[in-house]
């Protein structure tokens, strides 16, 4: 743990809203994408020398987005500055920077909207809080739109449902367009486009990793648990975040998925071409980029001839799979291009397409096809961290809120000791881990540590009261982020893990072969 140049926020005695500290995070800036990274994605490679060129291009893109996205247009017009969102953002609670209040973050963009796209802002800019787009303001966009994890917590409480995530995505899309991209996100997009996963892990390396995993598991369990890759005609294609292939604790969940398939006797495969569930195209709100990444999965499913598509533990990936895949790639009902029609014929209509791995496992548990030794998890006192994109941007099962119940049901089916964190920090009111939406990069460590503060505070309570020693979650970013920030708050980094890690511990694999 490196020495930090800033103090870790102190837990509050009672949850009062902190006083604002103007400019507290004005210095926070992620690394700017290099020309090479930008070029690979087809974005302008760098900011133009002449500010006027950048200015005109940014305003032009802004106008284009206003015509394409009703969310952006309605959200720009509808805010009344009521203040309901001001204390809802984890970055505000952790940093106290007023520009991390959702409304103030939006105002960075809305002030420009008013100036260029409304009569009131053109005529009386200072009266209505309108301002010209300047280089300084664009820099401020870069600073503060990269302190938003697009977690949508503010949108839950807004009387008009204004979702800052939509505003942040639009702002980043404009920044990309003028050559002001963020290195972390755009570099990863380059890798997934070129190689098929965010880690840039090529097919042979993936094959090696999976073979090694099979050998380890044979040694540990005595069973031949398989991690099939590119198997034609398998029943299920599993698409999972590539972090699952070797990062800790992610791989523990991958082990869990394999054991579930093994115990249920369902044939499955991974794809080396589509070896990534994550889709960072969402973070910058670039529809075409997101579509390009999503089409890889459709192509893999068609080539492998699978009947079902299941998505592993990943928050934003599940949002895209659940809510966007049908739109982007026709994976679901209703698309009428030849590939989509072929896919619809191929996929088994008895199952939801795509399904979340938790829906998959829970169905098997309900059918009695999986058995568990719950006592195997007795050394763990477990709590569950709802990941934002699963909680507020997707669903599992047949009813609203299934995304909260199904993971909890699985935990309770495989373990005996489970407690909830404070009600205003879970389910739809869950706090982001602090690393989502493209923030999970080293140079943003201050925003990440401070952004994790509300979750750490709620976790500390259940650790103190119930001795919680395991926080389960179903998101690769949450897992990576917590592994990094937990130690700063005095916790063991191994306190975080996946739901299928718990499944893995308790599942009965059958008679030894």
């Amino acid at each position, binding site marked *: 743990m490196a020495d930090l140049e800033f103090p870790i926020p102190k837990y509050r005695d009672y949850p009062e809203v902190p006083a604002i500290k103007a400019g507290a995070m004005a210095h926070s800036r992620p690394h700017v994408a290099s020309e090479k990274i930008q070029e690979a994605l087809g974005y302008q490679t760098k900011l133009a020398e002449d500010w006027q060129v950048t200015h005109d291009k940014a305003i032009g893109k802004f106008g284009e987005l206003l015509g394409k996205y009703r969310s952006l247009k309605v959200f720009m017009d509808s805010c009344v500055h*009521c203040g*309901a969102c001001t204390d809802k953002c984890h970055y505000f609670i952790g940093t106290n920077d007023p520009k991390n209040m959702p409304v103030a973050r939006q105002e960075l963009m809305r002030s420009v909207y008013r100036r260029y796209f409304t009569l009131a802002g053109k005529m009386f800019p200072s*009266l209505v809080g309108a301002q010209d787009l300047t280089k300084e303001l664009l820099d401020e966009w870069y600073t503060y739109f990269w302190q938003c994890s697009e977690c949508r917590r503010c949108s839950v409480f807004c009387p008009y449902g204004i979702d800052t995530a939509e505003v942040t995505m639009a702002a980043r899309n404009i920044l990309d367009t003028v050559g002001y991209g963020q290195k972390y996100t755009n570099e990863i997009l380059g890798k997934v486009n070129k190689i098929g996963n965010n880690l840039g892990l090529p097919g042979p390396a993936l094959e090696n990793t999976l073979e090694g995993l099979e050998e380890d598991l044979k040694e540990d369990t005595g069973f031949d648990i398989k991690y099939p890759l590119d198997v034609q005609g398998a029943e299920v294609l599993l698409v999972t975040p590539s972090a699952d292939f070797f990062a800790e604790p992610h791989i523990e969940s991958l082990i869990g998925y394999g054991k579930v398939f093994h115990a249920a006797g369902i044939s499955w495969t991974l794809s080396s071409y589509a070896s990534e569930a994550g889709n960072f195209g969402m973070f910058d709100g670039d529809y075409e980029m997101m579509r390009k990444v999503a089409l890889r999965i459709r192509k893999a499913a068609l080539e492998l001839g699978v009947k079902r598509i299941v998505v592993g533990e990943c928050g934003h990936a599940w949002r895209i799979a659940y809510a966007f895949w049908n739109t982007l790639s026709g994976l679901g*009902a209703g698309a009428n291009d030849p590939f989509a029609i072929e896919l619809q014929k191929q996929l088994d209509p008895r199952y939801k397409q*795509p399904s979340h791995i938790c829906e998959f496992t829970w169905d098997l548990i309900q059918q009695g096809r999986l058995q568990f030794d719950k006592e195997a998890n007795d050394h763990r006192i477990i709590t569950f961290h709802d990941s934002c994109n699963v909680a507020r941007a997707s669903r599992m099962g047949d009813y609203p809120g299934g995304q909260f119940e199904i993971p909890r049901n699985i935990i309770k089916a495989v373990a005996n000791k489970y407690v909830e964190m404070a009600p205003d920090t879970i389910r739809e009111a869950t706090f982001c881990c602090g690393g989502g939406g493209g923030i999970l990069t080293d140079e943003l460590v201050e925003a990440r540590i401070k952004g994790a503060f509300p979750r750490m505070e709620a976790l500390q309570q259940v650790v103190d009261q119930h001795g919680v020693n395991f926080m389960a979650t179903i998101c690769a970013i949450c897992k990576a982020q917590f592994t990094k920030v937990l130690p700063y708050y005095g916790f063991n980094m191994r306190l975080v893990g996946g739901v299928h890690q718990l499944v893995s511990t308790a599942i009965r694999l059958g008679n030894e072969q």
Partner: protein
Amino acid sequence: MTLFFAILFYLATALFVVGLAYKIYDFARTPAPLSIPTTPAPTTTTGVAFRMTREVVLFESLFKGNLWIWLFGWLFHMGLFLVLVRHLRYFIDPIPAWLLFFQPFGKYAAFMMIAGLGGLWARRFLVERIRYITTPSDHLWLALLIGIGISGAAMTFVSHVDVVAVKAFFLGLMVFEINPLPAHPALIIHLLLVALLLILFPFSKLLHAPGVFFSPTRNQADNPREKRHLAAWAAQIEKN
């Protein structure tokens, strides 16, 4: 003066109707390319109608978000609603029985409205975070609305105006006849401010009123696995 107000109200009403209709058309024609309801969300259109009704009538999200803002905001809006319904009596002749029944509620709702506005305005000074996000126009809107409330209530509770003549004036406007408007200071202030509100409405944050109905996070059903959402411009990309 009668002529001035007659022209003003024709103008203000025209701007209000045309401006608002244009904004609603603008919202409606802009596609929502992705399914983005804030979940958990209803899975059916009927469910969405219920969610929207709760949002518009009870301010459900705001209630979850902040009780003080909810209290003042709800008092103001419900007060305003009751007051507006009562005002129908100046535009309908004869007055139907249900509207007569409504009279006392609409009358005292003025205090609800003013109290709510007062609370909202106080928060703009007293709460540091809200002071930070407040623009001059936010103050001016509150001043305008409170001005309308107080000048209106003054005519009911302090110094009566010849309401029969006022009604004759507005009924006349509706059939393009100009009847004399009583010269009463509270009435003049009241009508000037109302006309100003009508004119500014389509250019201001008051667009939250139509906006909420078009908010994709609230008006979309949560059914993306069953139903494909595809905007025209996105369908165009698929052809490439």
